């Protein structure tokens, strides 16, 4: 339970040229244990999404390193990093990013197909059942409500059993009821599948439901509160 699955050390991300550099992240260091639920909060422009993208292998940092399951993400070549994140990192986005020409079931299986693997049908069915998607597995994203689309995105992220699930403002595009339902689903996944979750949000209420809250401000960690302190 206490094994470190993610370790971020002195992470820096700068934009712009020498003369006009803007630091989105500055010397950010923390680690995440396997099976934990961590929320990162901060105001708009505080660097939370940049941090999440950097951890997810989508955006290379200017300095520092990201170690996921003992592997330094940015020490790998691009193709190896892509394969690594495909197998070990699950993503849930604010705008769902579902592929409109694929059905719900196909969208959920997509990461496996990208890995040229047959999806684990039993596990996929189990995830769909838990997330209430069984009845709509043959539907297309355009035929779903916003909440159903986001549930599909969560199912897609969980279906290939990632080591860590990154959720970037997953409730940002949902109403309160759907947002609460989604958070309940994430907690359920955290418990039921022992899923490590790193969630980015600007909503303190949502963050409070996590086991740990890291607050970012201007690219720095302002506070890191967890356990009883929370």
């Amino acid at each position, binding site marked *: 339970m206490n094994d470190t699955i993610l370790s971020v050390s002195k992470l820096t991300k700068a934009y712009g040229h020498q003369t006009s550099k803007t630091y989105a992240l500055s010397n950010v260091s923390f680690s995440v244990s396997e099976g934990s639920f961590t929320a990162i909060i901060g105001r708009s422009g505080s660097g939370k999404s940049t941090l999440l993208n950097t951890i997810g292998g989508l955006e290379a940092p200017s300095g520092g390193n990201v170690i996921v399951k003992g592997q330094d993400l940015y020490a790998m070549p691009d*193709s190896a990093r*892509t394969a690594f994140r495909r197998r070990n990192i699950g*993503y849930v986005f604010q705008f769902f990013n579902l*592929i409109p020409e*694929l059905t719900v079931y196909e969208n959920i299986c*997509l990461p496996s197909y*990208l890995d040229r*693997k047959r999806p684990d049908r039993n596990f996929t069915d189990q995830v769909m059942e838990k997330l209430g998607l069984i009845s709509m597995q043959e539907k297309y994203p355009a035929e779903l409500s916003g909440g159903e689309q986001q549930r599909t995105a969560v199912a897609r992220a969980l279906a290939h059993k990632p080591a860590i699930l990154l959720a970037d403002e997953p409730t940002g595009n949902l109403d309160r009821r759907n947002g609460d339902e989604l958070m309940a689903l994430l907690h359920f996944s955290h418990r039921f599948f022992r899923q490590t979750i790193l969630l980015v949000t600007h909503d303190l209420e949502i963050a409070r439901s996590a086991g740990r809250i890291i607050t970012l401000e201007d690219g720095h960690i302002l506070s890191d509160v967890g356990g009883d302190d929370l």
Partner: protein
Amino acid sequence: MNGSRCSYAPRHFRLHTGNKSVAVILFAIYLLSLSTVIYTDSYEATLEQQRKLTYGAWHAAVYDVDEDSWEAISSHATVATAGRMEIVGYAVDKEGGLIGGVGYIDESLAEIGNISLLDGHFPAASDEIAVEASFLTRLGYSYELGQTISLPIVQDVVDGEVKNYEFTLTGVVKNYSTLWKSNNYWLTSFFLEQNTLPVQQQYIFVELLPQYVEYADSLIQLCPDDSSFVKNDFTYLQYSDQNAPQMDRAMLQTIIILAGCVAVVILINNELNKRKESFISMRMLGATRGQIIKLFFQGKAVPVLASSLIGILCGLGLPYLLYLLLRTRSDAAGLCFALNARHITRTVALLAAGITVAFGFGLIRLFQIPLRGKPQLQVASGNFHRRRRLNEKNLFSILNLAHFKSSILSTALTFATALFVFISAYQAWSAYEEYDFFCRNYPSDYSYGTLTILYPPTSAMSEDTLNEIKTAYGVKTVQAYSISDYYGAVPSGDYDTEYAEMVREFLANTVGARFDAPMYAPVIGISDDLYPFFAESVDTQLLSGDSLETGDVILYLPDFFVVDNNLINVDLASATQESGTILSDSKIAVGDTLTIDVNGESHRLRIAGIIHAFDDDFPTMFHPGRPNSLICNMETYRAIFGACQYGYVLVYGDDAAIQYQTDVELSKISSPLPLSNRRVERMEQRQRLGMRVFLALILSVSGFLMAMLVRFGLYSAMEKENLARYRALYQLGMSRKDLWRWLTRNATADTLTGSTMALFVLMCWRYMQERDQVRSFANYVFSGAWSLFRDAIERCVAYTDWFFVLCMFFFVVAINLIVLISYNRRYALQEANFYNCT
């Protein structure tokens, strides 16, 4: 709403860059289209004007016309101007040979014939003369005006009496007489005052009214029987079959109009995509569809009208400025600026129609704007009900369903680009092949005689005349052919009676005489320098050295095809139907002898070689044509006939000489064989080739640029949706390599499909060309549509330059792939990587 609408429109114009883009595109379309029309019209007019300066502006001429016919023709309703030329005699040189016509021309002819003076004036008194410049040189006079010209003239060629006259030189006339289409009539080179001497012959040259130019033939019925009617197809290409400029203009305009209209559609589509949300909001706030449409188009009206007007003015003005600039150049003789109101009106109307249709598209889209809805959800509202299930193998093909529309567009663009490149490049290549064919088959600078492939020669050149040609100014080498009539020949060995009977039948059909002897053969004497051409085609031989031995002959025994009941010689260009059995003689062998009887005397000749079929690259000019031809050297020919009777003479000029002077000198040598100036023909072909290559380049490059513009426009219109898809796939773990492979595979498939479709259309075009060609053969036996199709396809396969076609195909595929892959690399992949889920 009304008040806000009025104030919104100008601000709208300032704020939306879409208006500026539409304005720029419309300006460019009008400018390019009108410039193209004016350029091609002016180019055509300039070429015609230059031809008028060289070959005369008259449309038709009647040589040797009587006074009544002159009156009838000159007063005919179709005639605008009639010019008169009177021939009073012929100037002779010291040896008594005719060198040029002496006579009178009226002012009308001087004007329509562009007969101009280099110096001085035309004669105004009976003792004055004006002379063509080259004839003064030929007679040994300078161009000094006022000098006395002593001229021996034959007035009546029948009695041949030469009288000497003396005139004062008043003018030097620019050379023209060797350039005009004269049907071997002598034109006036020595100009006298009218009525100085009695008229022997008179000619009429007419310029027709513009509306009757096509009806020049209607004058034929007014011509006397013994006259000669000619249409000036040197100047007016409508009398020949060259219509390339019209076709090029049509192709260029089609590209510009199509590409322009598509570009307008794309720009409007882009703008509508950008403004869709604000229009939806306006609809929600109560704006009617009509109000939104009005708002959208009100903002467009001023830029559209202004840019169209400026485009039209610049399209008309810029070519005129260019014309003014070019006119100052010294080599701009005949340069024309043509404003053809019909062409310009048609172009503007076509453009306006195309642009209206393009805006109509915007109108349709505006009608579809919903009353409410979430923009980002509407994007994904496509209907993808289909198809097989996704599995690990068909991911890309299923994802491609969403790209179907863009794939069709991409394929269509490749098709359009490839088609323009293929057709224009193939035309250029055909022009090159035509030029190359001409150079190979007519290598000499001049030729006397026409190749009467199947018939005995009707006239021949004497040894004396040949010697005269050899010593003429500027002549470097002379090759000559002596061609005899048909004589009976008896081979020493066996011969194929079926083949011999077939040849007899063939000759009976073509020559009009049935010979009794087993073989009838013409004898062809060739100069030694022609020998290598023949030696290449000999199948079996006893030949050695660089020339034929005296007494040796090469026997031409052509292979025949049987087509229904007709026989066609395979070597001739008209032999297209390979539907019968090949008949050839296999019994006459090299080493056999032939005995030929000429005027009761027998001559024994050894067959040193046999030609059954000439090689493909054998020059047509040297082709003996006649079956059983006995090709020998000049000594053998002289031994049989006593002297050579040249049926065909090839003259090579000296590059160091003044070529025009050589033209004049050779044209003045009296010969029963007509002279052809191959050098000028070659030069004209070269100019045509240059023009064709230039146009092909312009067409290909403009086609490519337009297609690229449209392609990038389309891509940018679809970019948002596509990038979202690439980005999502990338974030979900599709490697850049896989993304790259997928896009490249799609690009390759689109390119190959489009290019193959264009290749198919090219082949259809080639098929139609060959079908027309097959139909045009006088002796083509039409035995049904299938047979015509098969023959045309056979020719299409045989006469298409596949190497060139393949090169073009791969070139177009490569260029398209480079463009597509660079696009994918530069935008799609980098953007997909850069965009994040922020």
